[in-house]
């Protein structure tokens, strides 16, 4: 019989757990405590103020940005997975997309923002090319530092991430299911409605939440494109870098506590969806 607590495992697990506790949990708890004790005594005033005025705007903007880039990226990522599913040829396409997605889902940050500035910034190559065919990007009101500019740049890592999430689910659709459906008299539309899509929905929703979390926390790209954007990550920078009246630090803690709560809720929801998928997964 295996002992409940394995000594060797405990010996190597302790430093690891201490590490996570010291560098992740301690600071998190520390900021939670500060957020809940504005001015030294317990209270919710900071948490309340963190959702008012311009801070509220930042949350609304961040959520809108994350939801938009998650939904658009999610749909395109799903379509990409579905497009490649039934394609045998050209052979290289599938493996290239797989590898590229693994790479691109991790790209982001400073270089990505630069790439888009070079392409569709005011002095961008594509901006110029579009000018040749009579489309004036700047005149049309498009700007990389505005909402839709950020969305487009975020799609660069959101689409591949969704592709990575959906590929196993899409690949898991067995050919026999569509054959069984068609021999039972189902049209291919009916098969997708009744069988394939219900099977993809949990992964898709889980993927959307992951994309949401991913873009909510993104900092570097937004920082380069528009350091003054009213979104949560940049607001934190503003509060943290001392541009604040004394006493406003509590507000930064409160904003972060709300952010953590939001992300935690999203990830718990993913776990719930996964449990639902597990109901079908093993068959």
């Amino acid at each position, binding site marked *: 019989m295996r002992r409940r607590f394995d000594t060797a495992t405990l010996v190597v697990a302790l430093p690891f757990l201490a590490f996570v506790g010291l560098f*992740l949990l301690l600071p998190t708890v520390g900021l939670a405590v500060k957020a809940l004790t504005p001015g030294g005594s317990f209270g919710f005033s900071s948490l309340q103020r963190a959702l008012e005025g311009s801070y509220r705007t930042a949350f609304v903007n961040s959520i809108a940005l994350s939801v938009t880039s998650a939904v658009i990226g999610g749909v395109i990522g799903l379509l990409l997975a579905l497009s490649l599913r039934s394609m045998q040829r050209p052979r290289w396409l599938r493996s290239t997309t797989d590898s590229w997605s693994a790479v691109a889902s991790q790209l982001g940050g400073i270089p990505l923002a630069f790439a888009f500035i070079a*392409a569709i910034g005011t002095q961008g190559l594509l901006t110029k090319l579009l000018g040749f065919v009579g489309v004036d990007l700047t005149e049309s009101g498009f700007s990389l530092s505005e909402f839709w500019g950020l969305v487009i740049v975020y799609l660069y890592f959101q689409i591949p991430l969704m592709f990575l999430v959906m590929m196993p689910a899409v690949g898991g659709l067995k050919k026999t299911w569509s054959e069984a459906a068609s021999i039972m008299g189902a049209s291919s539309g009916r098969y997708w409605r009744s069988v394939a899509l219900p099977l993809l929905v949990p992964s898709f929703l889980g993927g959307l939440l992951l994309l949401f979390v991913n873009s909510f926390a993104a900092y570097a790209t937004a920082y380069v494109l528009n350091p003054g954007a009213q979104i949560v990550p940049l607001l934190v920078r503003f509060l943290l870098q001392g541009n604040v009246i004394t006493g406003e630090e509590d507000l930064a803690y409160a904003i972060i506590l709300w952010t953590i709560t939001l992300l935690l809720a999203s*990830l718990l929801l993913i776990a719930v969806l996964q449990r639902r998928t597990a109901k079908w997964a093993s068959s």
Partner: protein
Amino acid sequence: MGIVVKVLRAIFLVLLGLFFFVPLLAMARFAFQSVPVVLLTPEKLLEGWSISGLIEVFGNPEFQRAALISLQLMVLSILITLVLLLPVAALVEIRAPQFRTAMAAITLLPWVVPPIALVVGVAATFRNTVPWFLASPYSLVPFYVLWALPFSYRALDAGLRSIGARTLYEAARVMGASTFTIIVRVIVPNMVGAIIAASVLTAALVLGEFAFAALLLKETLPTFMAEFQRSEPRAGMALALAVMLLTALIIWIGVRALRKRGMDLQAAGV
């Protein structure tokens, strides 16, 4: 499948390909062609190409300092990841599988507390109690190890499972080997691919992380890049492209290392 669907699919794939390729192309042009985009005409397409800007960056002492720091952070992060995480992952898999779920949950925590959130907590806790800790750029290492966890743990875990670590362990146990010997002589040599993958994913993360370093005012490669581009747009762009390609190469090596052994890079958490 109907011809219409096929055509639509082809158009969709081409557009998507352009979306991913054009920014890189524009970046390369900006970085290596000294013709401003306003003056660019079809006749001038081949004029003024040079990589001297990039070469100059390499000579910049500030760049060298930042790159060296990033390199050191990278190596230290990988080492700590392997020393701290590999034994836990291996022992949980072979001797205490009941803790697998707990490990999976713990290693996902960094998704809940992203850099932009943790930096506030770190400032709140460490700045007053141990100010010397945050003075050194090496204080970034533990946090980089943490953010790589969702990826590094999953790579190691996939490796352990694909080699059937528990069976190997039991087989070696029957032959009388100690747990330590088994991990060092049997498990580790068999999961080189997963170890490479975990290492390069950590490396890629260190190479790209900006928020934490910037907010703690540390000069790493990404923070240098952001500053440098303001004064030297062309060379800055070249550097960013080089870093991007380097990151892509690093991740690609990791994906290959996993694929060669029949595993795949998983999106963490889903």
